[in-house]
């Protein structure tokens, strides 16, 4: 399954962001969104892609861009994982029905039952402007995201 490409309208979703709260893509309309699908919480490496994305959040501010992580892990797992990693961006739970959002982006690995390592940059009107899928064993860096965001105007305070 190939991931959705630039020019495609980003499929709407509404997923748990905490055990009792949901977040929809449409709620983020009006600002660029970065979706980071990843296979699983608790991967054994300490400096993985999420930790790196966590460190570049200040670089997203000028674009008023929102970064969200998505995996099939449950909301409680996300909660514990996020606390342990000191993540300052939301993790969404594509848990029930499992992987349905990842599937709609072409970012689901049927055999393993987990999300691909896939990145999507979505403009403020909801169109995908950049997407990238890396081999699942290889963490993508943050350079692709930052490069894709450069196409957008800087309008945030940058603070």
């Amino acid at each position, binding site marked *: 399954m190939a991931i959705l490409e630039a020019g495609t309208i980003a499929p709407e979703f509404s997923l748990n962001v905490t055990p009792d709260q949901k977040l929809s893509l449409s709620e983020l309309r009006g600002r660029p969104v970065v979706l980071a699908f990843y296979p699983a919480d608790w991967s054994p490496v300490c400096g993985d892609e999420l930790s790196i994305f966590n460190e570049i959040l200040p670089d997203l501010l000028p674009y008023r861009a929102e970064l969200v992580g998505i995996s099939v892990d449950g909301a409680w797992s996300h909660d514990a994982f996020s606390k342990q990693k000191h993540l300052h961006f939301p993790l969404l739970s594509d848990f029930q029905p499992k992987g349905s959002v990842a599937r709609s982006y072409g970012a689901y690995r049927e055999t393993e039952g987990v999300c691909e390592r896939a990145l999507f940059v979505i403009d403020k009107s909801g169109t995908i402007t950049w997407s990238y899928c890396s081999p699942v064993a290889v963490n993508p*860096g943050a350079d692709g995201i930052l490069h894709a965001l450069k196409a957008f105007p800087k309008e945030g305070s940058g603070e």
Partner: protein
Amino acid sequence: MNRLSIPIGPDDHTQGDRTALLTLVEYGDYECPSCGQIQPVIQKIQKHFGKRLLFAFRNFPLAELHPWAEAAAEAAMYASKHGKFWEMHYLLFENQERLSDSLLLELADQLGLSSSDLSVALEKNTYRPRVRTDFDSGIRSGVNGTPTLFINDERYDGLLGFDSVVDRIAHVLAASKV
């Protein structure tokens, strides 16, 4: 394929011959256990290739994950200013499990450097911009975790054991001779 955005330059901390055919760049974090584990492997690789390999270390502190990583990197830059970068580099990795403000000062003392000057530098974040320069170059190069290695400017995505890295370097060396 991810490539090093900024090649090894005069501001880098390097070991080996600047004109060497082979370059190995490590983006690392002094508090990261995986970086600590690869330290002896890097030294073994350096020994293996000898003069043919130029090694550079660049800072990539994951400060949200490792509370002492940034201060440790700044302490290394302070030591560098006084010509003792590698001495501090090794001490930091040796002591990575007990990093603290007082330990950093103790290590400066041990190297015959002024611990009070280091204390002031840490408080004023004197060396933060220098550490940031390394970090930003890493982000732009597609650093995807710590440690991330670049062999002749190309990101290495394989296993971090001696044999795997040496295989890759040997492969690059053979290809560059063609």
